[in-house]
């Protein structure tokens, strides 16, 4: 059982999410980006709309990543802080950020080396790499789930626990969608030394793999985006009803 002071601190940490704006803004962004990716996977290969959609998605991602935090801060400055007060959270110092980023960079580098080694090593290891790529969206869903459930523990927000559960459920669904694809790959497809042109059968399955991975990632973003938007909108309604339009002293 948590003591009162811990609950107070948990509540203070949750204030950043109290107005529901975070879920609304990031939910819209995720759902739109997922929708764009889904459209790309359904457009015909090499067709002008596909190229246009790809460029739009890239620009949307770049602009969104930088613009979303700015937009969120702007909305909070106008809609939240005048109503329920201003809170600034501690920001990580450069050394602390570096301390967190370096292990992630080392892991990413080792992963790249491992994948490259596996591709060169043998037909069996190439098959492992190929099969594991199909599970990337499922892994993303599990990762989102863990992040949201961890956030729910830190802030005490039930809706983050709900979002984490939705993400884990979506990951299971995506895993289910991946299973039939795995039956199409066989060791014979990866015979040879791993260099030179790809056999036609392998090329077709590779194309299908890329489409499946993108489509699954798109569905994950759409489901999570819509769920976050709905929960954010409900939170926003509740917040506005609860909090009177107060002004600073």
């Amino acid at each position: 059982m948590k003591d009162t002071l811990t609950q107070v601190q948990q509540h203070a940490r949750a204030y950043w999410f109290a107005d529901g704006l975070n879920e609304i803004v990031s939910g819209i962004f995720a759902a739109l980006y997922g929708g764009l990716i889904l459209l790309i996977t359904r457009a015909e290969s090499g067709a002008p709309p596909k190229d246009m959609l790809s460029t739009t998605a890239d620009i949307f991602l770049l602009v969104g990543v930088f613009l979303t935090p700015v937009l969120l801060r702007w909305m909070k400055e106008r809609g939240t802080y005048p109503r329920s007060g201003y809170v600034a959270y501690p920001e990580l110092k450069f050394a602390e950020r570096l301390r967190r980023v370096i292990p992630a960079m080392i892991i990413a580098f080792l992963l790249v080396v491992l994948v490259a080694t596996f591709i060169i090593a043998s037909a069996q290891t190439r098959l492992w790499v190929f099969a594991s790529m199909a599970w990337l969206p499922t892994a993303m869903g599990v990762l989102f789930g863990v992040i949201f459930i961890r956030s729910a523990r830190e802030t005490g927000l039930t809706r983050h626990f709900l979002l984490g559960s939705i993400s884990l459920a979506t990951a299971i669904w995506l895993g289910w969608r991946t299973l039939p694809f795995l039956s199409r790959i066989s060791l014979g497809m990866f015979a040879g030394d791993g260099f030179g042109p790809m056999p036609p059968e392998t090329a077709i399955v590779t194309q299908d793999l890329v489409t499946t991975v993108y489509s699954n990632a798109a569905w994950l973003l759409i489901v999570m985006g819509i769920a976050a938007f709905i929960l954010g909108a409900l939170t926003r309604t509740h917040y506005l009803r609860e909090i009177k339009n107060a002004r600073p002293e």
Partner: protein
Amino acid sequence: MPALNEHTDIDRVLHEPARAVITAILDTVESADFLYLQRETGLTKGNLSSHLAKLEGAGYVAIQKTFRGKLPLTLCRLTAPGKQAFDQYRKRLADFIAKT
């Protein structure tokens, strides 16, 4: 009786529910304004001012009066001695509960 001294020697500035809550909030955030603290603690303006003044007097809280646009803003943050005192206070409380 050294054991009893341990318990009676608790920080009196922090050992008051409202001030303990204010300090707990400020220990979590970088800074918070008067309006937020008032909403979170449920205290009246006068009461909150009085508690903040006591914490400021003890050197635990720094108060900065500023403006956000055209609106006045009173920002409060926990000082380094305040953070240290709060950590010590919590440890004392935990020790006390563990021993009883």
